[in-house]
């Protein structure tokens, strides 16, 4: 609309430029822009909650590590000892420490505790004990696992002081700092060797039976140990993955203290292809039936501290509920119904679960669910695996990792070698 155009309308317009009147942005565009902005702000707020939850989780993980590694200075409360005793000791020793006749020694008014005091209790809790023992003139011959991996210095001090003062009326106490010293001194030591092992620890110990003399290591036993620790020209050593103490790591299971018959069955299953794992398939191919039984006995008789810690962010309370009571809304029975109290294992069909690696447990449960592991009696575990959600698997795996390991049972090993060694029938 310039003056030029108006000068002579007959002339063709050679300088015309197309143009548009300025127009408003359509309203829907504003709406979309506003909606996007609101969505962005909402997402930012939500993400900040997520970050807070993540930070809290990391804080709780590092708190656990700090609690596990540093001795706590504060003097424990007397009530704490009673509660900890109920949680950790009462399932075997009884609510009042009365023990079980012929099976579990009493802790209430016990002559051994009276002679040794809180310090001896700490030593035994830290290392575990196995073999013949005389308490209050009664004979016992059982196994108690080490609780070093389960309880921190403060907890052990509380329990030792509770047993010494409340159950035996002693004045002797230990402080968490003393417990820490005992922990350092006991690291890597085997469980106490029955009553005779305690002789050097406790002054005025009542007469104790002689320890069972360990059988002289046979050439076979030395060969088995060499196989487990060094492997052969063809296969890697057991220890290179399962650890020098058979404690396992991540998806590699703990072997120490599992029933030899169970271990032998699993090795045979790998060999026959009824259980599948590439690395184990490789190894069992060059193991003879005799070697399988000897290795099963070797790891069955091994007693070692727990190498497992809860690490899958599982809900420990939920895991404890599944292990102790099951979840009947999902038709899941309690783990301990079959796998024994505290998951110590029952016979050759139900392996010990206590102190098993959490990633291994969760991984195996997922494999039962998916059907890639299917060698349980009557398909029991397949049904359970299918009923557990991913969070439940992690919860129960983390709970089992928090338990003390089951003590080795040497008697079980002998039975296996007597019945299966000659026949090697692959059961």
């Amino acid at each position, binding site marked *: 609309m310039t003056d030029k155009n108006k000068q002579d309308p007959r002339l063709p317009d050679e300088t015309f430029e197309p143009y548009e009147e300025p127009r408003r942005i359509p309203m829907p565009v504003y709406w979309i822009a506003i909606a996007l902005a609101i969505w962005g702000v909402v997402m930012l707020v939500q993400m900040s909650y997520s970050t807070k939850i993540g930070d809290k989780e990391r*804080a709780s993980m590092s708190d656990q*590590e700090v609690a596990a590694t540093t001795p706590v200075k504060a003097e424990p409360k007397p009530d704490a000892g009673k509660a900890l005793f109920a949680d950790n000791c009462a399932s075997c020793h009884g609510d009042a420490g009365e023990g079980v006749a012929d099976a579990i020694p009493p802790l209430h008014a016990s002559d051994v505790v009276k002679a040794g005091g809180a310090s001896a209790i700490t030593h035994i809790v830290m290392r575990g004990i196995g073999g013949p023992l005389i308490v209050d003139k009664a004979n016992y011959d059982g196994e108690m696992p080490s609780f070093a991996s389960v309880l921190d210095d403060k907890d052990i001090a509380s329990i030792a002081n509770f047993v010494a003062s409340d159950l035996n009326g002693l004045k002797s106490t230990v402080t968490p700092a003393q417990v820490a010293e005992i922990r350092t001194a006991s690291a890597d030591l085997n469980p106490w060797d029955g009553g005779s092992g305690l002789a050097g620890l406790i002054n005025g110990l009542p007469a104790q039976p002689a320890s069972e003399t360990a059988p002289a290591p046979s050439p076979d036993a030395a060969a088995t140990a060499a196989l487990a620790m060094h492997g052969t020209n063809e296969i*890697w050593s057991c220890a290179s*993955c399962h650890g020098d103490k058979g404690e396992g*790591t*991540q998806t590699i299971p703990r072997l120490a203290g599992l029933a030899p018959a169970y271990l032998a069955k699993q090795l045979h299953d790998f060999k026959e292809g009824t259980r599948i794992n590439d*690395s184990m398939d490789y190894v069992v191919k060059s193991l003879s039936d005799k070697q399988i039984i000897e290795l099963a006995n070797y790891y069955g008789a091994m007693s070692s501290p727990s190498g497992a810690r809860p690490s899958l*962010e599982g809900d420990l309370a*939920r895991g404890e509920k599944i292990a102790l009571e099951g979840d009947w809304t999902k038709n899941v029975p309690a783990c301990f119904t079959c796998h024994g109290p505290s998951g110590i294992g029952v016979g050759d069909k139900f392996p010990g679960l206590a102190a098993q690696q959490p990633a291994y447990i969760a991984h195996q449960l997922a494999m039962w669910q998916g059907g890639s592991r299917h060698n349980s009696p009557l398909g029991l575990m397949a049904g359970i695996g299918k009923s557990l959600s991913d969070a439940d*698997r992690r919860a129960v795996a983390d709970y089992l990792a928090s338990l003390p390991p089951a003590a080795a049972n040497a008697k079980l090993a002998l039975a296996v070698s007597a019945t299966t060694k000659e026949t090697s029938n692959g059961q």
Partner: protein
Amino acid sequence: MNRYLPLVIVSLAILSFATLLLVIIPGMQIAKSGASPGLKPYTVAEARGRAVYVSMGCLYCHSQQPRDEAQAPDGERGWGRASVSGDYAYDTPHQLGTMRTGPDLMNIGDRLPSQGWQLTHLYQPRAIASWSIMPAYPYLFAHKAKADPGDVVVKLPPAYAPKTGVIVAKQDALDLVSYLQGMKHDYAPPTDGLRDDGYELMAAQQHNNDAAKASK
């Protein structure tokens, strides 16, 4: 299209805003957080092994970034806890990787600690898993008539062993395995460690729903 100046200014502003939010601020956050307290610097052998890892292009198939339980079942696979920025403090360049053709290797030293296993597997993955698609690395090994003292002999099944002599690991293979064995990030993560927590809220809500259902 004749107002160039405002156009240039606006586009530069958008670019610099994006650079600030996506590069500069994250860079400052990461620089502030430093190495995780439990992380050890590489030993000489591990550092050499890391150079082998980089030169072999392992990261094209293997990531080094396990995810949180809220995002993936990496913990159940034994791949370890979710990593945080501080876990990579000594990695320049980092080997995060984006592909998981093979498994995550951030905690391979925890998951498969056996030197013997790693050497056999590097020499011939099919010796262990017939279905494996990982390439073999025979040029990291030497075929000798007899092992010299100090040589590490690779354990092989008859089907893959040479007819005569032995296979021994060259220095590169030993260094690479040292590096893999050292990949253990099993310490607790620092509280201020940076990572993607984007799914935590969803996981927490799911958890609460489950708990509510279970209590009914």
